[in-house]
């Protein structure tokens, strides 16, 4: 059935567009169809064929279904860029939505919903209304989804025209596919809406569970996913639901199985009878195991989910550990996940078999997998006390293979095993020391040095071993340097000095023990003296020669301790360390709850709550985009629990503070930071406050009057009303504020604080509002600064502000930042540089938006108004009956905006196109320009 469509790609003659234009207008049907195919082919390879819009739309009126589909496809792609012409298609759409052929009716309504042009949307309502009540289920199921499409474009319209009610009616449709799509649409609308739209009653639940039986597999997934939000009233209802969902575990479609598992697990939380729960666990095991015979990508999702499930209900798969043994040909991502689950399921009963497996994996070729396998052995040792010895003997066997990265990984985990079981397995230290010179990775080196320091008294030649690292001290990574420093001090403290010593004043006036007889570190003196010289070298290196503040600080602390009170030094440096524990059940309970409610979804794959990665959710909350996005796979314990009194084995270097100039004496603490704020805990609950810009009030400043938008109404502020707006004056961003006291008492001590925001806006100085007597008001202009506390994530116009006074609680309100207050005075561009910049930016940086409600009637006045806001006019040209204007603007940090406005003077509708290196700013820009043009 292979086609020969590729021939349509091959017309690359000169003048292709005019040629196509001619063919599209041919009187012959076949020629027109071929021409449309060529157009679509050109579109597929990314050529711009939008100029053929009218000609293609002319082909829309056809009986030929294939041709019609192609034209529709073209419309979906280009309607956005030709919104005015798209209206030409409306008539045909409306006509097609009444075609006798249900395929065409459905096609019309489906396509119209995909064209995200406001003008078209208005015409969609009537056909959609009809199609929702169509006789043919195929049309109804398409219309159901179309309501969700329309809601995405224009939610109000959907609510006003009663589409939600029609959609809810479809839940009772006699056709299961229609029901499923209606559920999918409603669930989606609910997600994007704040009000309750789709609430599942026990009646709906029962109806949907019945429909489940007859749905397509995908429909079953929609329904199960929607129903998993349902909270059963009591254990009996929960049992009932579970009983009706359990047969889904038998479905061939893995997604259906996982969604059923999700629902059962949700309801199980309510079920009290242990028998029922045990029985359900037994029923869920085989289907979960079978998921591992699915395609590898599905296995991956299943494994990420099983990881969660065994954390909550370890019994389900307690006897199935063997199915997680890796196959030779498993993709690496499957192997890694299996390993993680094996660790979770490892128990005293199966540990022997598991260790055999790990050992096998540790000799494979994939380095990352091997490392993880070695680490897994260590984690099992820490988790299972009785198996620890067997784990260690496997690790020792692996070290004997002498594969470099295996040895290093083994030493890292053995260090943790020593932490977990102190004074138990030290006999193996000798074996470890044999591999000393093969270590080249910082973490392995640091671990080995920690071991030497910690057990210095049992290692005869500990000093020699440490010394071998000292020569390269300056070149070592910080992690190793810190460990060397601590280990040397431990050695010094543990092997008491016998030789003659005296106090020496170093050039830093810090006294230190040092042996008079040892000057050179390579001298063949006694162990004791050698130790001391080691210490001297290390301390010197770590104080005078380093730029690393952490290292230097620690070195000085040791130095002082040793010189003032060696006993205290012992107490600190050799303090008993807290015992570490196994963390292989690492997710905390509330997060686990949330993830389990999201089984099968991306959230369960990432092991992150949906808010952490979904940016489209319509809420006012600031976006919390997490930078170090999902890597829940390996959060080994080894880097956390070791932060103990002696510095641990893997300290973190801080890069935040600037290093002191080398050699400077750090002794007295730096001058106290800026005087503490009068109310230190003020606004402490605002997210991420770190700059203490809370300042007292003194100098009021009256400002010219202009009505400001109310940001905190008196009803919310217990009588205090605040109006505020960001403005720009003389190149300075100001927050113009008006305080009105409608309370019965005088208010004073006003302070303000801004939460992190996209522009890093913060107060440049104190808020100056005098005491406000009841019934009076005060205006102030607060100078602002930029880039103080910038929040991550997509740019947002949200500005969260908190204001407090001495009499009332803290008030929080949201304000909107209009981008135009940031337009700088130097934003004017020369024509030449404008053109050059426009060309140099790729097309992907161009963003378009229609501003349908805007009328430009007086060009001069508009240009003046824009110029006043630092949007500079560059050029103007006529295109047909439209006027095209070009402007430039610039925001701080030199980000330019090149703007093109197209409009018919005096008629509503402005098309705005912008190009900028930061297209993510575009939505904010459009908001700003819309308000500027409206004004």
């Amino acid at each position, binding site marked *: 059935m292979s*086609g020969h469509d590729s021939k349509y790609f091959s017309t690359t003659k000169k003048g292709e567009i005019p040629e196509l234009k001619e063919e599209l207008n041919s009187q012959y049907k076949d020629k027109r169809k071929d021409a449309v195919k060529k157009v679509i082919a050109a579109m597929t390879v990314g050529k711009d064929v939008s100029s053929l819009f009218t000609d293609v739309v002319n082909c829309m009126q056809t009986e030929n279904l294939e041709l019609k*589909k192609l034209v529709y496809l073209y419309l979906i792609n280009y309607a*956005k860029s030709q919104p005015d012409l798209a209206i030409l298609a409306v008539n045909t759409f409306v006509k097609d939505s009444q075609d006798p052929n249900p395929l065409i009716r459905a096609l019309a309504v489906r396509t119209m919903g995909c064209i995200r042009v406001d003008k078209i949307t208005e015409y969609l309502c009537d056909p959609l209304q009809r199609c929702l009540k169509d006789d043919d289920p195929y049309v109804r199921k398409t219309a159901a989804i179309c309501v969700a499409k329309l809601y995405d474009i224009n939610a109000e319209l959907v609510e006003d025209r009663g589409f939600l009610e029609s959609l809810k009616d479809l839940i009772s449709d006699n*056709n299961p596919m229609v029901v499923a799509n209606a559920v999918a649409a409603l669930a989606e609308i609910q997600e994007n809406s704040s009000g309750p739209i789709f609430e599942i009653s026990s009646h709906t639940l029962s109806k949907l569970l019945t429909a489940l*039986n007859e749905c*397509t597999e995908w429909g079953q997934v929609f329904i199960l996913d929607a129903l998993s939000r349902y909270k059963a009233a009591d254990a009996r209802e929960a049992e009932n639901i579970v009983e009706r969902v359990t047969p889904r575990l038998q479905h061939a479609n893995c997604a259906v199985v996982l969604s059923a598992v999700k629902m059962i697990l949700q309801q199980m939380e309510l079920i009290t009878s242990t028998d029922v729960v045990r029985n359900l666990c037994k029923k869920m095991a085989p289907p979960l195991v079978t998921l591992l015979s699915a395609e590898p990508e599905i296995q991956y999702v299943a494994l990420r989910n099983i990881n969660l499930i065994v954390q909550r209900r370890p019994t389900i798969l307690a006897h199935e550990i063997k199915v997680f043994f890796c196959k030779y040909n498993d993709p690496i991502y499957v192997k890694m996940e299996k390993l993680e689950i094996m660790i979770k399921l490892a128990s005293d009963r199966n540990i022997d078999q598991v260790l055999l497996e790990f050992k*096998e994996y540790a000799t494979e070729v994939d380095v990352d997998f091997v490392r993880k396998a070695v680490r897994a052995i260590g984690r099992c040792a820490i988790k299972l006390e009785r198996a620890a010895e067997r784990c260690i003997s496997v690790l020792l066997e692996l070290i004997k293979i002498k594969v470099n990265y295996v040895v290093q990984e083994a030493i890292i985990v053995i260090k943790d095993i020593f932490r977990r079981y102190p004074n138990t397995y030290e006999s193996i230290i000798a074996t470890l020391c044999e591999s000393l010179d093969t270590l080249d990775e910082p973490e392995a080196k640091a671990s080995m040095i920690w071991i030497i320091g910690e057990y210095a008294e049992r290692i005869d030649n500990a000093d020699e071993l440490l010394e071998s690292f000292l020569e390269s001290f300056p070149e070592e990574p910080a992690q190793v340097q810190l460990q060397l420093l601590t280990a040397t001090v431990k050695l010094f403290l543990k092997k008491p000095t016998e030789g003659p010593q005296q106090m020496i004043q170093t050039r830093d006036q810090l006294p230190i023990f040092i042996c008079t007889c040892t000057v050179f570190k390579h001298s063949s003196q006694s162990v004791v003296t050698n130790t001391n010289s080691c210490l001297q070298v290390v301390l010197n290196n770590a104080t005078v020669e380093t730029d690393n503040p952490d290292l230097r600080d620690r070195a000085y602390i040791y130095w002082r301790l040793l010189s003032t009170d060696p006993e205290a030094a012992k107490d600190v440096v050799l303090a008993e360390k807290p015992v570490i524990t196994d963390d292989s059940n690492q997710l905390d309970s509330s997060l686990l709850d949330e993830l389990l409610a999201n089984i099968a979804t991306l959230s369960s794959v990432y092991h992150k709550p949906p808010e952490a990665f979904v*940016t489209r959710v319509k809420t006012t909350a600031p976006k919390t985009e997490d930078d170090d996005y999902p890597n829940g796979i390996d959060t080994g314990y080894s880097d956390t629990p070791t932060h103990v009194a002696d510095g641990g084995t893997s300290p973190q270097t801080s890069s935040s503070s600037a290093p002191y100039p080398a050699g400077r004496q750090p002794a007295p603490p730096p001058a106290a930071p800026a005087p503490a704020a009068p109310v230190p805990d003020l606004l402490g609950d605002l997210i991420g406050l770190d700059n203490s810009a809370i300042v007292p009030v003194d100098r009021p400043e009256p400002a010219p009057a202009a009505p400001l938008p109310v940001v905190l109404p008196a009803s919310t502020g217990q009588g205090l009303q605040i109006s505020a707006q960001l403005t720009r004056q003389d190149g300075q961003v100001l927050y113009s504020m008006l305080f009105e006291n409608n309370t019965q008492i005088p208010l004073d001590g006003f302070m303000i604080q801004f939460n992190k925001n996209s522009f890093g806006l913060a107060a440049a100085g104190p808020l100056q509002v005098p005491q406000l007597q009841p019934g009076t008001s005060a205006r102030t202009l607060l100078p602002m600064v930029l880039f103080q506390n910038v929040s991550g994530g997509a740019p947002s116009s949200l500005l969260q502000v908190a204001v407090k006074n001495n009499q009332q609680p803290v008030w929080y309100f949201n304000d909107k930042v209009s981008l135009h207050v940031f337009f700088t005075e130097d934003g004017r561009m020369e024509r030449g540089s404008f053109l050059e910049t426009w060309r140099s930016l790729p097309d992907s940086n161009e963003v378009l938006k229609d501003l349908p409600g805007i009328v430009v009637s007086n060009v001069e006045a508009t240009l003046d108004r824009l110029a006043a806001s630092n949007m500079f006019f560059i050029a103007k040209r006529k295109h047909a009956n439209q006027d095209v204007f070009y402007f430039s603007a610039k925001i701080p940090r030199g980000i330019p905006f090149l703007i093109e406005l197209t409009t018919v003077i005096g008629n509503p509708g402005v098309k705005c196109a912008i190009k900028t290196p930061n297209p993510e700013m575009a939505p904010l820009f459009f908001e700003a320009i819309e308000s500027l043009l409206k004004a």
Partner: protein
Amino acid sequence: MAGAASALFLLDIKGRVLIWRDYRGDVSAIQAERFFTKLIEKDGDPQSQDPVVYDSGVSYMFIQHNNVYLMAASRQNCNAASILLFLHRVVDVFKHYFEELEEESLRDNFVVVYELLDEIMDFGFPQFTEAKILSEFIKTDAYRMEVTQRPPMAVTNAVSWRSEGIRYKKNEVFLDVVESVNILVNSNGQIIRSDVVGALKMRTYLSGMPECKLGLNDRVLLEAQGRTTKGKAIDLDDTKFHQYVVSYFKCVRLARFENDRTISFIPPDGSFDLMTYRLSTQVKPLIWVEAQVEKHSRSRIEIMVKARSQFKERSTATNVEIELPVPSDSTNPNVRTSMGSAAYAPENDALVWKIKSFPGNREYMLRAEFSLPSITAEEATPDRKAPIRVKFEIPYFTVSGIQVRYLKIIEKSGYQALPWVRYITMAGEYELRLM
């Protein structure tokens, strides 16, 4: 919980977009392409190989088939299992249409591809992926499109997998019981994992709307019917049914199997998998392979292999293929076998021993010698530790002992249909780790 895909991409092996369909207008093809090409460039990083990846607000889920990547992008918390499985179904649909899914076939059929993408997913929600039904109203042959199409009843009918009015002169049903044996033996010769995955594969050529009833010797099923379970009865661990399994009475479908284990269904036309099951009882390896590898000096390696069939003499394994891993730099093979032929496949670093027919309870030998380069690299990188892998088929035999007791076909016109039943066992993931 709701969530859907934003767009579907078909990309070439380098990650460039061949065809894409934008369902929601909230992801950009350029951004997706840029991200994906970068992703497949950095091969070594294990994180980058996950089939679900996140980049600046968009989650990408992808699978590979031949020289084509299929990728879905989403900005929501969509059902990842469903979307990935959907991508696999899309592969099936395309294969049904173009025989093979590859870059060429997509280019050659881009018009149909667009049509299909429009039909199988709407606004990012998977809709309909039964290739057979789709091909009833989306035709590749352009001329037949002149006749106005209607959506087949099956698209929205409760019996969505079978159209009305099918007619055959001779009514026949073929039922193949296919069992794959998966086994993993560790280097100590211990069986550490074994299971059997079975499938009931059917091909039906039946007129009208027939209802089929299938009886198996499943223990639960027999007991439920009040029969004694003497004689051969088996325990199936996990059974999966295709959508088709449905009793004739609409209300109970899977629920009915759950209750009384009756399998009754209206079959789709043509071939399909009716049911799959899994059995995790320990099975004796049907073909046991022992290999001894001896490294003589540094330049010669000798392999001695014994293969033994451990099933009854009346059965015979056919097309037996034993893949023996050898060091990657082996040369000059010198092989002798007591049965079959062996060929060195350096591209797989393996010696492949083929035995056409391997009767039960026999033992065959292979002895091979290879030269190794006398100079070896200094670093002690471990050899690739591939396992021995075995392929075979044993007709007229099942490991589980499953038996079809009856297959009844009832159609209102009352015709007689012929059921044909075959059994076969084959090797699935059959791995024996080397010492």
